[in-house]
C-alpha cells in the first residue's frame, strides 16, 4: 500500500465517498416520543419554578409573618368568644336567681 499513486487515489475516492449522500431519516413516531418528553420537561420545569420560589428567603419570611398574623387573629378571636360566653353565662345566673328570689338577703331585711 506504499505506492504513492495508489494512496492518492484511495484518498480521493474516500473524500468522494459521501457524494450523493441521502438524508438519514429518524425512527417513526418521533413526534409522539417528543410530546411525551415535552410533558415530562414541563412538569420538571413547574417543579423547578415552584422550588425556586419557595426556597427564597423572602418567601420564608412572608410565610412566617403570615403564620404569626394568623395565630394572633386566632388567639384574639378565641379571647373575644370566651369573654362573650362568660358575660352571657353571668347574666343567665343572675336572671335565674332573681326569678326564684334566691338572692342573699342581708340581716336587716
Amino acid at each position: 500500500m506504499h505506492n504513492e499513486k495508489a494512496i492518492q487515489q484511495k484518498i480521493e475516492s474516500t473524500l468522494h465517498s459521501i457524494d450523493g449522500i441521502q438524508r438519514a431519516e429518524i425512527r417513526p413516531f418521533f413526534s409522539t416520543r417528543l410530546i411525551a418528553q415535552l410533558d415530562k420537561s414541563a412538569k420538571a420545569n413547574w417543579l423547578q419554578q415552584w422550588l425556586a420560589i419557595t426556597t427564597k428567603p423572602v418567601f420564608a419570611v412572608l410565610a412566617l409573618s403570615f403564620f404569626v398574623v394568623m395565630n394572633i387573629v386566632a388567639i384574639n378571636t378565641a379571647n373575644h368568644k370566651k369573654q362573650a360566653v362568660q358575660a352571657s353565662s353571668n347574666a343567665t345566673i343572675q336572671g335565674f336567681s332573681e326569678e326564684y328570689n334566691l338572692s342573699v338577703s342581708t340581716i336587716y331585711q
Partner: protein
Amino acid sequence: MNEQLLIQQLQHNMGTAFNQLVEAYQHMVYNTALSIVQQQQEAEDIAQEVFIQVHQSIKHFKGEAKISTWLYRITITKSLDWQRHKKRKKRFAFIENLFGSNNEVQHEASDFFHPGIASENKEQSAILFKAINELADNQKIAFVLNKVEGLSYQEVADVMNVTVASVEAYLHRAKQNLRKQLETYYKSL
C-alpha cells in the same frame, strides 16, 4: 405553509403549528446531529432537545433568520456540547484507569456507517467520518453543512454567522486536514 405565518402560530402556542414544524424539520435536525455525533440514539436525543428548546424559546424568536438557519444553529450547538461532554468523560475515565479505580477496558467507538450512504461506499465513508470527527469545530461544521447537508456557501455562512470567504477558508482547511489524516491512515495499513 408560509414561514412567517408558521412563526406567528408557533408564538401563539398553537399545537398543530408545532407538529407541522416537527414534521417538516425532524429529518434535517436529526441528520445534522447524526453527522456530528455519529451515533443514532444520541442524534435522536439531541433532535428531541432541539425541539424542546424551540418549544420553550419560540416567543423570543425575532424572525431575523430563517427557521431552518435557527434550527441548524441550535442543533450544532447541542451536538458540539454533547461531543465536548463525551470527550471530558473519556478523559476522566482515562485518569480513573491510571489510578486503578476502574478496571474495565475502554473501547474505542465503533465505525460509523451513515444510513444514507450507498452500500459500495460504506467502508470508505466510515473512514472519512472518523477523520471528520478529528477536525476543528469550525471546519467540521462547514464540511458537514456543505457536503452532507448540501447547503450552499451562503447558507453555511448564515448558519455559522460568518462571511462566505470564511466558509471557503474553513472548507479549504478541512479538506487539507482530511487529506493529511487519510494519508497517514492509508500509509499505516
